[in-house]
C-alpha cells in the first residue's frame, strides 16, 4: 500500500470530519442547553447561507455587508423560535420538542426558498479552495487551504463554546435547563431569554457552517442534508460535549474515508452512507453515552 496515499486519505478524512463537526456543534449547543434534539439545524444552515447570498444578490452589496445583516436575521429567527415554538412547549417530553423542530425545519426551508428562490447559488469566500502548495511541495500531500481554514474556525468556535458552558453561570444554567425545565424555572432561570439567546447563537453557528459549507458545495437545498453527516459525529462524541463534536468529527471523518477507499471497493462501494452510523453504533455499545457525553442517569 502506498503510504503517502494513505496519509492523504487520512488527512482528507480528518479535515472533512472537521466540517462535520462544524454542523455538529450546532446540535450540541441546543441539546446540551435545553435537552432538545434540534432537527432544524440543517435547515438553519441552509437558511443562513441562502440569506447571506440572497442579500448580496438582491441589494448588490458585498459579502462583508451581507454577513451582519444575516446575523441580525438569525438573531430574529432565534427570538421567533423561542416565542412561537419553545415557549408554549415548556416542560413537554423530548420527543414532542424534537417533533416541533421538524416542523420548524419545514417552515424554515419553505421560508428560505420563498424569500430567495429555489435556485442554486455560488458563494465565494476569499479563501481559495485549491491544494496548499506548501504542503504539496514539501510533503507531496494534497490538502486544500480552505479546509485548513475551516478547521481553524471550527477549533475556535468549539473552544469558545466549551468555555461558555464550563466556566460561566449562564453555562451552568443552560445545563440545568436541559435536565429539568420546571425546576429551572423555579430557581429563576429566565428560560425565555436564555432560549432566545441560545437559539440565536445556534443561528450564528449555523451561519458559520453555512458559509463554509456553502463555499465548498454551493448554496443549495442539499445544505440541509449535511445534518445527516453530523449525526454520527454527534452520537460518537456524545450529544452533550463540545470537544466530543470535534473528536467525534475527526474519528468519523477519518474512518469513513479510509473505509470507503480501502474497504469500499471490495463490497461495491458507497459505504460512506452507513459506515459512520454503524461505527458510531458499535462504539455506543461500549459507551452508551458516546465518548464525552454525560452519563445517562438511571437510578431508582
Amino acid at each position, binding site marked *: 500500500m502506498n503510504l503517502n496515499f494513505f496519509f492523504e486519505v487520512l488527512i482528507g478524512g480528518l479535515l472533512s470530519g472537521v466540517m462535520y463537526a462544524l454542523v455538529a456543534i450546532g446540535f450540541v449547543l441546543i441539546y446540551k442547553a435545553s435537552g432538545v434534539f434540534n432537527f432544524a439545524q440543517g435547515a438553519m444552515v441552509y437558511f443562513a447561507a441562502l440569506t447571506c447570498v440572497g442579500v448580496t444578490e438582491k441589494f448588490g452589496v458585498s459579502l462583508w455587508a451581507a454577513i451582519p445583516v444575516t446575523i441580525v436575521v438569525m438573531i430574529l429567527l432565534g427570538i421567533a423560535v423561542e416565542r412561537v415554538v419553545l415557549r408554549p412547549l415548556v416542560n413537554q417530553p423530548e420527543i414532542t420538542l424534537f417533533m416541533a423542530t421538524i416542523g420548524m425545519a419545514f417552515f424554515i426551508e419553505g421560508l428560505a426558498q420563498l424569500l430567495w428562490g*429555489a435556485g442554486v447559488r455560488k458563494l465565494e469566500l476569499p479563501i481559495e479552495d485549491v491544494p496548499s502548495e506548501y504542503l504539496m511541495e514539501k510533503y507531496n500531500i*494534497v490538502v486544500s487551504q480552505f479546509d485548513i481554514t475551516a478547521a481553524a474556525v471550527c477549533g475556535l468556535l468549539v473552544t469558545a463554546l466549551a468555555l461558555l458552558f464550563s466556566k460561566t453561570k449562564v453555562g451552568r444554567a443552560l445545563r440545568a435547563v436541559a435536565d429539568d425545565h420546571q425546576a429551572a424555572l423555579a430557581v429563576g432561570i429566565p428560560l425565555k431569554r436564555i432560549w432566545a439567546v441560545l437559539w440565536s447563537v445556534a443561528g450564528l453557528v449555523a451561519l458559520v457552517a453555512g458559509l463554509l*459549507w456553502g463555499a465548498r458545495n*454551493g448554496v443549495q*437545498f442539499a445544505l*440541509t442534508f449535511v445534518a445527516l453527516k453530523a449525526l454520527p459525529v454527534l452520537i460518537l462524541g456524545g450529544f452533550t460535549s463540545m470537544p466530543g463534536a470535534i473528536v467525534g468529527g475527526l474519528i468519523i471523518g477519518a474512518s*469513513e474515508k479510509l473505509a470507503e477507499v480501502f474497504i469500499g471497493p471490495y463490497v461495491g462501494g*458507497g459505504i460512506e452512507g452507513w459506515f459512520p452510523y454503524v461505527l458510531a453504533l458499535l462504539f455506543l455499545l461500549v459507551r452508551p453515552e458516546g465518548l464525552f457525553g454525560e452519563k445517562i442517569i438511571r437510578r431508582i
Partner: protein
Amino acid sequence: QPADQYIALPSYRVGPYAAGGSGFYGGIIDYFNLVNLSGGVNGVKISWEECETEYNPSRGVECYERLKTKNGGATLVEPLSTGVAYGILDRLAVDRIPMTMIGYGRSDAANGKVFPYVFPLITSYWNQAAAMIKYLGDKNGGMDKLKGKKIVHLYHDSAFGKEPLPVLEALAKQHGFELIKIPVTPPGSEQQSQWLQIRQARPDHVILWGWGSMNAVAIKTAQRNGFPRDKILGVWWAGSEEDTVPTGDAAKGYTAMTINTPGNYPVLDEIRKKLYAAGKGNLADPNRIGSVYHMRGVSAAILWVEAMRAAQDKYGKGKRVSGEQLRWGLENLNVDEARLKAIGALNMLPPVKTSCEDHEGSGAVKVQQWDGKKWNAITPNWIVGDKALTRKLLEETSNAYAAEKKITPACLK
C-alpha cells in the same frame, strides 16, 4: 367534453431538486402559453395543471391520480422523476394516458411493444452513455484509441446511477478500455474519498453520472484535489447552470452531455417578447430563459405540441384529441429539421422520429463545455452512440419485463 387539450404536470418546485423542476416546468408552461397566444394547436387551446410532488413517489402518485380525471381527463403526463414515473407506470395503460420521460427513466421503455404508453423521448440513459463513449473515442482520435485507457464512472449510488452500467461495461469490453466504477452515496455532499481514489487511479476521463447537489460537490472536490475539470464529462443531469454556477471558477472547462444545443433561438426570443415583456412568463428570474432546464422544458413542450398536431391530422383537425389518440401522435412523431426551423428551434434539439419499436426517436446528443459564464457546444454535430448495442440490450430487458408481467409484446394501433 371541454375543448382544451389538458396536460397533467406533477411538478416539483420545492426541495432539493427545485431548481431543476422550476426550470423544466417553467419552460413547458412558457411554450404552452406561447402556443395559446397564437391561437392554440389548430385552434385547440392547451390547458394544464400542476401539482407539487416534492419529488416524492407517493405524493407523485396522488398528484397523478388527482390530475388525471380533471378537465375531462388528462391526455399526457410528465413527472420528471424516476420514482414517480415508476409509481404510475402500471396505471398508464389502464388510464390510457401517455407519459413522456424526457431524458430519464428506464431506458428499455423505448420499446413501444412492451411499454405502449411510455415515451423516453430524444434520449435514454443507455444511448446517452453510448454517445459519451463515442465522444471520448472521437476525442482520442478514434474508437480504437480507447484501448488501454482508464475511464472512471463516478455515479450516484441509486437506480439512476446504475442504469448505464450494462452499456458501459459492454463498451469497455468491446473497445478495451478499463472502466472503474466509483459510487457516491446520495445525496453526495462529501466526495473527498472518491476523488482521492480517482486521483490515485489517474484516469483519462471521468464520467460524472451525478445528480442534484452531487455535481457541484464533485466539481469542487475535483478542484480541491487538483483534478483537471476538462477531463470530466457529465451526464445531462450534471450539465446545467445549476450544477456549475455554485462552483464558481472551479467548473471552468468542465464538459457535459446535453440534448439541447446551448444558444439562442427564435422561439426563445418570442417567449421573451410575448410573454416576459408582458409579465406572463413562468420563471421568476427571466435570466433563466434559455438555461438548460428551461430549454429542455421548451423542447418537451414542442414535441408534445407536434404530437398533438400529428394526432389531430389523423383524428380530426381542430378538435381535442384523447389520451389514446395523443399516444398515437407521440408514436408517429416526425419532427425534422424543416419543422424545427418553422418552430424557431432549429438545432435547439435533434430531429425526432418515433415509431412503435422506437419510442425514443433520436438518441442524439451534444457535448457542451462551461466557460465560467455559460455553456457552449463543443461538438458541432449531434452524436449518436452504438445504437445496435443498446437496441439489443433493450430487447432483452424489455422482453424479460414483459414475461414477468405477462404482457404479450405488440404494437398498438
